[in-house]
C-alpha cells in the first residue's frame, strides 16, 4: 500500500533540516505543555516523530481516500441547494475523514484544540493533499483563516471560534468583488455599526469566493463611510449560523472543480470585527494573503508531483518504435527536468516555510516576554526574507507547475488530450495557481523589492558563505558566475533610472534571482545528502542558460523599446 508521505523522501529530509531544532524550540519552548496536554511532545526527537507520524496519517488518507475520490469529485462538483452549497459526495467523505483524523486546525495552539504544528509541517500536509486533489486542498487549506483569527482577533472571538476548527468547521476568506480583484482597495461591501445592538452588519456582494458557504468566513468590508482606499477597510468574522448570506451562484470553472467558487449576497449579515478598524487590508489581509500564497506554492508543487508521476508511469508503459517512449531523449529530458524542478521548488517551499516559522515563532514569544536584541533581529530578518521569498515561491512554483503539467500531458501524446487519464485534470487544475491569491504579475511586483533592496543578494551571499564539500565547489563556481550576471542585469536596469523600464524587466530579474537561490538551496541539500548533487547540477546548468538569455535580452533592450511595446495599446479591439 502506498503512502504519499513515505514515498516522497524529500519530506523527511526537509523535516530533518538543521533549523528544525530552532523551529521546534520556538513552538514548544521547554516542552512545558507536556504537563498539561497528554498529546504534547516530550523533547525535540519526540516532536519530530509526532510530525512524521501525523504526516504519515495524512499520506495514508491521501492515498486511500482523497486520490481515489478525485476523478468523481471533478466530474460531480458541488451544487446549489436552497441557496447553500452542497459538496460532491467524495468531498464530503474526504473532509469527514480529515476531521476524524483531527487534521483541521493543525497549526493552532493546543489551547484551541490544535496540534501546534509549525507551518513547515502544515504546508507539507497541504502539498500532499494537493497532489491527491488540488481542488479539495483549497477547502482543507482555508483553515489558514484560523491563523489570522488567532493572530489578530480578541480573546473572546478566539475562545468562541478557534476550537470549532478541530471539530470540523470550514472556513472562507471573502475578499474579491466584481470590481475589486487584484485591486482590493476598491472593495465596496458595506459594514455598518448599529449602536442599539452593538453589532456590525454587512451588506453587498462578493464574487469568486472559494468555499463561500463556509461555517466561518473572514470578510473584507468598507467600514468607513465615504472612504475610497485601503484605509477604509476592516476585516470581519461572519458565522454561517446567522443565515444572512445567500449563495447566488456557483461558478463553472476550467479546473479545481471540486472546490465551490461562490457569488455571495450579504443581507444585513451580523458580523464581528477582527482586530481594529481600518487595518483590514493593510495588515490582516496581507498576513492572510501571505499564508495563502505559501499554500498555493505548496499546492503547485503537489500538482507538479502528481503530473510527474503520471508522466513517468505512462512513459514506461507506452511503447512506440519497439521500445518504451521513456528511452527517447526527447521524453527522458522532459521527465528529468520535471523531477529536478520539483526538487528545487520543494527546497524553496520549505526554506520559505522555515522563515515564516521563525518569525512567527518569535512574534508568539514576544507576546509572552520581551525579546532580547538577537531575537528581535532574527525575527525582523526572517520576516523581511519571508516577505520577498513568499511571492518568489508563488511565482516560481505556480508557473513551473503549469510547465510540468504541460510537459506531462505532452508525454501522454494524444491519450493525454482525452479524459481517460488523470493528467487531463491535473493540467486544468494547475492553471489557477498563477492566478489566484495574486497573479504572477502581482507576485513580481512584491518580489522585485527583493531585487531592488538587495534582500535576495544578501541571502545569496549567506548561502554562498556556507562551507561545502570540495565535490560541490564546481557548482558553487557556476552559481557565482550566475550571480555576477544577475548583478550586471540589475545594474543595467537600474542604470536607466526609469520606473517603467524596471517594471518591464522585473519578472526577468526576479526569476534570475530565483534560479540562483534555488541552485544554492540544492547545493546545500547536496551537502547534507549526496543524492541531491546531480539534481543540483542539472538545475544549475539549465538555470544558468536561462539567466544568460534574460541578461542578453536586458542588455539588448532600450528605453525606446518600451514605446514600441506600448504600441499594442493603440491596436484596434475586436
Amino acid at each position, binding site marked *: 500500500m502506498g503512502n504519499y508521505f513515505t514515498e516522497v523522501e524529500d519530506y523527511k529530509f526537509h523535516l530533518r533540516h538543521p533549523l528544525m531544532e530552532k523551529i521546534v524550540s520556538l513552538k514548544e519552548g521547554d516542552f512545558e505543555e507536556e504537563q498539561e496536554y497528554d498529546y504534547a511532545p516530550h*523533547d525535540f526527537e519526540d516532536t519530530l516523530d*509526532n510530525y512524521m507520524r501525523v504526516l504519515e496519517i495524512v499520506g495514508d488518507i491521501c492515498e486511500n481516500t482523497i486520490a481515489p475520490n478525485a476523478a468523481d469529485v471533478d466530474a460531480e462538483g458541488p451544487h446549489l441547494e436552497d441557496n447553500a452549497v452542497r459538496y460532491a459526495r467524495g468531498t464530503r467523505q474526504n473532509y469527514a475523514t480529515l476531521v476524524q483524523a483531527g487534521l483541521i486546525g493543525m497549526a493552532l495552539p493546543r489551547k484551541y484544540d490544535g496540534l501546534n504544528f509549525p507551518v513547515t509541517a502544515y504546508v507539507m500536509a497541504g502539498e500532499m493533499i494537493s497532489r491527491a486533489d488540488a481542488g479539495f486542498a483549497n477547502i482543507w487549506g482555508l483553515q489558514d483563516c484560523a491563523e489570522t483569527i488567532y493572530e489578530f482577533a480578541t480573546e473572546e472571538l478566539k475562545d468562541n471560534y478557534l476550537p470549532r476548527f478541530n471539530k470540523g468547521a470550514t472556513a472562507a476568506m471573502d475578499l474579491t468583488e466584481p470590481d475589486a480583484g487584484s485591486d482590493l482597495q476598491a472593495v465596496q461591501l458595506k459594514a455598518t455599526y448599529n449602536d442599539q445592538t452593538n453589532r456590525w452588519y454587512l451588506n453587498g456582494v462578493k464574487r469568486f469566493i472559494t468555499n463561500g458557504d463556509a461555517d466561518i468566513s473572514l470578510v473584507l468590508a468598507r467600514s468607513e463611510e465615504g472612504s475610497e482606499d485601503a484605509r477604509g477597510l476592516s476585516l470581519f468574522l461572519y458565522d454561517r449560523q446567522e443565515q444572512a448570506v445567500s449563495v447566488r451562484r456557483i461558478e463553472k470553472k476550467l479546473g479545481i472543480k471540486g472546490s465551490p467558487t461562490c457569488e455571495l449576497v450579504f443581507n444585513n449579515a451580523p458580523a464581528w470585527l477582527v482586530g481594529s478598524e481600518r487595518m483590514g487590508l493593510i495588515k490582516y489581509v496581507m498576513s492572510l494573503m501571505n499564508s495563502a500564497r505559501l499554500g498555493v506554492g505548496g499546492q503547485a508543487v503537489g500538482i507538479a508531483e502528481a503530473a510527474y508521476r503520471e508522466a513517468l508511469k505512462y512513459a514506461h508503459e507506452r511503447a512506440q518504435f519497439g521500445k518504451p517512449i521513456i528511452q527517447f531523449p526527447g521524453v527522458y529530458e522532459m521527465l528529468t527536468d520535471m523531477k529536478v524542478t520539483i526538487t528545487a521548488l520543494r527546497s524553496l517551499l520549505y526554506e520559505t516555510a522555515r522563515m515564516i516559522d521563525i518569525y512567527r515563532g518569535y512574534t508568539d514569544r514576544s507576546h509572552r516576554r520581551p525579546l532580547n536584541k538577537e531575537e528581535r533581529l532574527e525575527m525582523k530578518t526572517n520576516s523581511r526574507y519571508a516577505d520577498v521569498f513568499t511571492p518568489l515561491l508563488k511565482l516560481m512554483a505556480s508557473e513551473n507547475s503549469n510547465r510540468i503539467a504541460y510537459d506531462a500531458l505532452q508525454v501522454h501524446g494524444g491519450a493525454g488530450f482525452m479524459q481517460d487519464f488523470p493528467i487531463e485534470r491535473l493540467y486544468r487544475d494547475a492553471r489557477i495557481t498563477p492566478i489566484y491569491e495574486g497573479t504572477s504579475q502581482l507576485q513580481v511586483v512584491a518580489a522585485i523589492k527583493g531585487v531592488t533592496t538587495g534582500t535576495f543578494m544578501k541571502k545569496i551571499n549567506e548561502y554562498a558563505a556556507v562551507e561545502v564539500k570540495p565535490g560541490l565547489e564546481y557548482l558553487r563556481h557556476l552559481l557565482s558566475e550566475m550571480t555576477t550576471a544577475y548583478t550586471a542585469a540589475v545594474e543595467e536596469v537600474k542604470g536607466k533610472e526609469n520606473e517603467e523600464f524596471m517594471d518591464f524587466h522585473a519578472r526577468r530579474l526576479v526569476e534570475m534571482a530565483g534560479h540562483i537561490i534555488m541552485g544554492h538551496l540544492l547545493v546545500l541539500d547536496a551537502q547534507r545528502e549526496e543524492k541531491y548533487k546531480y539534481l543540483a547540477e542539472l538545475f544549475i546548468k539549465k538555470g544558468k542558460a536561462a539567466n544568460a538569455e534574460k541578461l542578453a535580452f536586458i542588455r539588448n533592450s532600450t528605453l525606446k523599446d518600451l514605446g514600441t511595446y506600448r504600441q499594442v495599446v493603440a491596436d484596434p479591439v475586436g
Partner: protein
Amino acid sequence: MKGLNIIVLAKQVPDTRNVGKDAMKANGTVNRAALPAIFNPEDLLALEQALRLKDRHEGSQVTVVTMGPVRAANILRDALFRGADKGVLITDKKFAGSDTLATSYVLSRALQKLAPFDIILCGRQAIDGDTAQVGPQVAEKLKIPQITYVEEILAVSKQKITARRRMGNGMETLQGKLPLLLTVHGAAPACRTRNARRLMKYKHACTPSEMSHQREDYIRMHEHRHYLDLTEWNVNDLQAEEAYLGLYGSPTKVNAVTNIVFTARESKVLAPTDEAINALMAELVEHHTVG
C-alpha cells in the same frame, strides 16, 4: 443503559496481498518474517463496529485483545490511535504453532479473565489462515451465543442485540442475548482513520516486555500516565493447561504444501452480439452461477 464492555479480538497477520517466494516455511507454517505485518483487515472492521457502539452508548469501553509475538503490540497501539481504550497482548513462546483449537482455548482463558463483558467482536477470518473458526470456537468455549458474518449492528438494548448478517445469497437479521460474540464480515464499513491527537497521546504505550527497550524518561512517563500501560499475559497469567497449547495442542497438521499455477482449462469465444451475451446469461442463471 450503562456503558457496554466491548472486547475486540484482533490478529496481526502477514500481508498476504504482498506474497513473495519465502512466504511459507518448509514445515508448512507461514514465514512471518518475510512479510509485512498488518492489522487483519476484517478485525479492523470489527473494531469499527465496536467504536460505533461506544459512540452510541456513553460510558462504554473497548478493549482490544491480541495473541502473538511481542511485536503484535503494534496493532494494539494502532487500535488505540483509532479510538480503543485498552490493549491486551497474550504472548508466550509456548503458544507458537497454535492452530484454531489451541488459539481459541488461549483466547477464551483470557476472556474469562476480562469478564464480565457484554459483546465480543472479531473479524470473520484472518487473511493468513482463512479458517473463520476462531471466533465460533471462542463462543463455544465460553458457552455464549454467537452471530457470524455480521455486516451491521442494528440495535443493542439491555439484554439483546440485533444484527444483520450477510449470507452468500442474501441478508438475515438476528437477535441474540448478551453477552455474545459477533464475527464481522468484509462487507461491513471500513474502520475509521487514526486520529492525530490520539496517536501523539498513545504512541508511547507499551507492554512490560517492550518497556525494557525504552528510554528511562519514557518509562517514568508510565508512572502517572497509566493509559500507556498495555496489559501482557503469558501462560501462567492465564492458568492455561500446557497440553492444549502450541504445536502440541494443535491437532491440525499441514500435510503438504503445493504450488498451484492457475491455468484456464476451458474457454469460450463469444460473438460480440446481444444474442450471444443473452445466451451466456441464460446459461449462467441456469447453472446458478448468477442470480
